[in-house]
């Protein structure tokens, strides 16, 4: 089977790469003008601003890395581990260098599990933010016909990629450490996600909110360690 041609002329790629297609954007904006409404800020934006492009770069590198490591695992019986030089390199470099072959007898499985969990947490938070982005997109672009524009825009594709990758990374992490240790760490998503929501979507959070989040995290810790 011939794979899809990934060039700019391909109409499908054009749809995927330009979630808010320019013509559509102009049309909606002019409709708003006719009704004497100010166009929503979302429509007047460029299709992708730099922050979002960075975000996309993050998890597409995660995707490629996870797929590569899955493939490598299938091809070779050896397990590959992640060498994470703590804190000195940014996350997108980490995921680029995830796959490195350990020397025989090296036992860095535990630390690699924590790195995978970090990837899971980041991907999950990103996926939640993307779901919010999809929600805003559907709000401003009511579906017509088959709603392909909702399924094939950059946010939907990226959210699906995020969730898929986080699933793969989660499975990897669980091969190294027990669920009762992995689950509480995953609740870090509830701490990171609000920060992203405040930054990207102008949500506001208060101190009682973080109190509630602390309660939830404590509860998840108790639940996941209750088996012991």
């Amino acid at each position: 089977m011939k794979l899809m041609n990934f060039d700019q002329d391909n109409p499908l790629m054009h749809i995927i790469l330009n979630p808010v297609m320019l013509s559509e954007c102009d049309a909606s904006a002019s409709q708003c003008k006719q009704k004497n409404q100010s166009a929503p800020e979302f429509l007047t934006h460029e299709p992708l601003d730099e922050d979002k492009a960075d975000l996309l770069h993050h998890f597409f590198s995660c995707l490629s890395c996870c797929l590569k490591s899955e493939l490598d695992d299938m091809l070779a019986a050896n397990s590959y581990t992640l060498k994470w030089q703590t804190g000195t390199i940014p996350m997108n470099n980490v995921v680029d260098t995830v796959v490195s072959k350990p020397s025989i007898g090296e036992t860095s499985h535990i630390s690699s599990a924590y790195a995978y969990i970090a990837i899971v947490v980041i991907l999950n938070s990103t996926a939640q933010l993307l779901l919010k982005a999809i929600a805003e997109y559907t709000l401003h672009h009511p579906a017509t016909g088959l709603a392909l524009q909702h399924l094939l825009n950059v946010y939907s594709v990226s959210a699906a990629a995020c969730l898929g990758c986080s699933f793969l990374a989660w499975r990897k992490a669980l091969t190294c450490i027990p669920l009762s240790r992995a689950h509480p760490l995953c609740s870090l998503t509830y701490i990171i996600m609000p920060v992203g929501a405040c930054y990207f979507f102008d949500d506001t959070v208060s101190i009682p909110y973080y109190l509630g989040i602390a309660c939830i995290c404590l509860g998840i810790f108790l639940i996941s360690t209750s088996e012991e």
Partner: protein
Amino acid sequence: MSHYPEFILIIIAAFAVAAGHLSLKKSSLLAASRAAVSYLWALLGVFLLCMGPLAAIYVLRKIPLTLAVPVGSLVYVLVPLGANIFFAEKLNRRFWAGLSFVLIGIIIVGLSKP
């Protein structure tokens, strides 16, 4: 808390996701003995798991992300409860303490004014 329908929908979605996890568990239990039935359970599980993000997209049109996502932590409570009911897995005091903390946390988050 003027968004009761949305909150109820996202709680239903949490139930669906928990049911999805339990279906996958059922599928893995049946994998050795009855492969075809196990496959059907796995399909049902994946379908139910997909309900989570879809409901989230609908709900997030009305309520902010910071309120919707913590409700999703109900899944952590519902899965062990379901495992207790359907697979006779045992629960201890630590679980019930955790359950109450999660519920209290969700209520605090729901009531916190931005």
